[in-house]
């Protein structure tokens, strides 16, 4: 027990009873050992928040961590992503972050994954007891959310079965502002339930950019969206392509002979500069001040300067929630914390509610079917089912289009599925989720709707998994 001092606070937290604990909390000195032994945490992202999260979780008693990130370290990361050093530039973030934390916190094991989140299959994500998100995009959050929610199972009373809940803690920062939230699929709103929270992206009309730019941002967007294509007809805008970059570099030199040679190393900066120089030309033409390098970066990459302390605060909140979820040592946040450190310090907790018809985390409607039922017959059932009453249904199963009412070209392509058994079309899974769109009567008005259905086939249970494995 060389580390007693280090764990003193955690030991107290986990071995003493209290008034504010979660129901089911059983304080015991073993709790901390169990935390290390039985809890496997995935940290998604090893950037500003990810570095903090890894460190915080490791120092909170979690010893079995994985981290996934597809990026390599850039010079511009070093000011806040404190696990990285100058000599690490170019190396995978996940690998360096894992190594650094393991060096500093004894007894912790971190497995890095240097890849895209989409590269891992569902079985990879299934292993984890909790997923901590340190991401910077709606797309990535939405993806992980759909993965985590896909493990969720409901019983026949539409109650989520507790052992299938894959908790997530999600952090996000933007300058001095941030949020931390807890997502318990089936219990608290999932990411998709509250996606309307995001403000619409500010987009400028293309013609304003082309004809009457009024702000610096207009000029930059013009260079990025229109000028780029004009010069590189058809070529995609790719910051990682070296040949591309070579071309950019020579262009930049032509446009802007004063470009500092140091910038050759920083390829993206060159790219940004290429755009900036076009933007500058344009700003000059229309007499608009304020086109700067950082603004160019901001508009092109949607970059908002990251503040290290915001990341630290948000990550601490997330790591604490992870600890609370796993040990029940205190009540879990309910369910969305916003933090604003711009002027003074403001925090607010909001309890968002679930969207009961959420396509991602909602229970959907349970249907028990015979394996012999054809898609055609299934569609008739959907029309008669009292909870559905869907006419003119179109059916999709996990990215496979089974039947489409329109347009004619798709109807034709999917028509042959109608006489096939649904069980076969669903890859002989004993149970799975299927989505149906169609028309339904609501208050005597025909409205279109999209429904999630939980299909369970009678008389097949578990055996199919084995069949699948041997068949594949």
């Amino acid at each position: 027990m060389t580390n007693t001092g280090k764990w003193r606070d955690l030991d107290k937290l986990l071995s003493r009873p209290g008034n504010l604990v979660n129901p089911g909390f059983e304080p015991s000195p073993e709790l901390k050992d169990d935390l290390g032994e039985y809890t496997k945490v995935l940290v998604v992202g090893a950037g500003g928040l990810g570095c903090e999260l890894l460190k915080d979780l490791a120092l909170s008693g979690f010893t079995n961590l994985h981290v996934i990130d597809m990026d390599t370290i850039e010079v511009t990361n070093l000011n806040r992503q404190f696990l990285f050093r100058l000599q690490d530039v170019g190396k995978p973030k996940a690998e360096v972050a894992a190594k650094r934390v393991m060096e500093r916190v004894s007894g912790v094991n971190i497995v890095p994954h240097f890849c895209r989140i989409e590269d891992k299959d569902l079985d990879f994500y299934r292993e984890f007891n909790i997923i901590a998100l340190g991401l910077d995009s709606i797309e990535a959050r939405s993806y992980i959310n759909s993965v985590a929610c896909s493990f969720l199972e409901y019983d026949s009373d539409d109650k989520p079965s507790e052992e299938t809940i894959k908790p997530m803690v999600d952090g996000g920062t933007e300058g001095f502002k941030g949020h931390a939230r807890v997502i318990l699929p089936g219990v608290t709103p999932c990411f998709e339930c509250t996606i309307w929270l995001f403000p619409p992206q500010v987009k400028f009309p293309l013609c304003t950019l082309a004809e009457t730019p009024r702000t610096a941002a207009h000029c930059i967007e013009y260079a990025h969206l229109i000028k780029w294509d004009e010069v590189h007809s058809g070529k995609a805008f790719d910051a990682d392509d070296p040949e591309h970059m070579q071309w950019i570099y020579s262009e930049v030199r032509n446009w802007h002979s004063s470009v500092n040679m140091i910038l050759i190393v920083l390829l993206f900066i060159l790219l940004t500069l290429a755009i900036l120089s076009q933007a500058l030309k344009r700003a000059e033409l229309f007499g608009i001040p304020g086109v700067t390098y950082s603004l160019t970066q901001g508009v092109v990459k949607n970059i908002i300067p990251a503040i290290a302390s915001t990341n630290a605060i948000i990550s601490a909140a997330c790591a604490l929630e992870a600890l609370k979820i796993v040990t029940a040592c205190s009540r879990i946040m309910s369910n969305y914390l916003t933090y604003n450190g711009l002027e003074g310090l403001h925090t607010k907790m909001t309890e968002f509610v679930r969207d009961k018809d959420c396509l991602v985390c909602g229970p959907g409607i349970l249907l028990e079917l015979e394996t012999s039922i054809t898609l055609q017959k299934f569609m008739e059932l959907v029309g008669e089912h009292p909870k559905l009453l869907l006419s003119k249904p179109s059916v999709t199963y996990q990215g496979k289009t089974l039947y489409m009412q329109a347009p004619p070209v798709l109807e034709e392509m999917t028509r042959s599925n109608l006489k096939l058994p649904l069980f076969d079309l669903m890859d002989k899974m004993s149970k799975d989720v299927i989505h149906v769109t169609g028309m339904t009567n609501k208050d005597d008005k025909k409205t279109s709707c999209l429904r999630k259905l939980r299909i369970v086939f009678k008389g097949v249970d578990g055996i199919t998994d084995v069949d699948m494995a041997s068949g594949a």
Partner: protein
Amino acid sequence: MIRLFKVKEKQREIAENANGRAPVKKQSAGELRLHKDISELNLPKTTTIAFPNGKDDLMNFEVTIRPDEGYYRGGMFVFTFQVSPVYPHEAPKVKCKTKVYHPNIDLEGSVCLNILREDWKPVLNINTIVYGLHHLFTEPNYEDPLNHEAAAVLRDNPKMFESNVRRAMSGGYVGQTHFTRCTC
């Protein structure tokens, strides 16, 4: 503790069910919403839709517009649609594949249509975009130009604009720019 107990139990369960289950492709909420949009498409008769990657990739498709009135009557214009997984939070990316002499479409295929950018709302759908594109051909608009020369001609000399459009569509030069034939 209850949770931890579950965790332990689950560890055993995982060990038991470890034999491989087929990894299933995840369907994004955006795909589902798009599926609904597509299944409810009610296109004008001058418009057709095609799915070059087959029935299981609805996120990339092409819409062909054959205007039956206005300056562009008799032409055939292909638009590519790219839909993101966070649709309808984000508008689809729409480009005109056919090189066209049009005040609101530039020679690289960028389209100036308000609902594709600043006025996009998640309540809009693929159908509204197609109608919007269709509208661009029946009512080209010189006030929001992407192709300035075309816009200026339309504003100052509609007769000449008309003959320019004809020349471009039948595969000829307008000024220095060559257009490929796109009449059907």
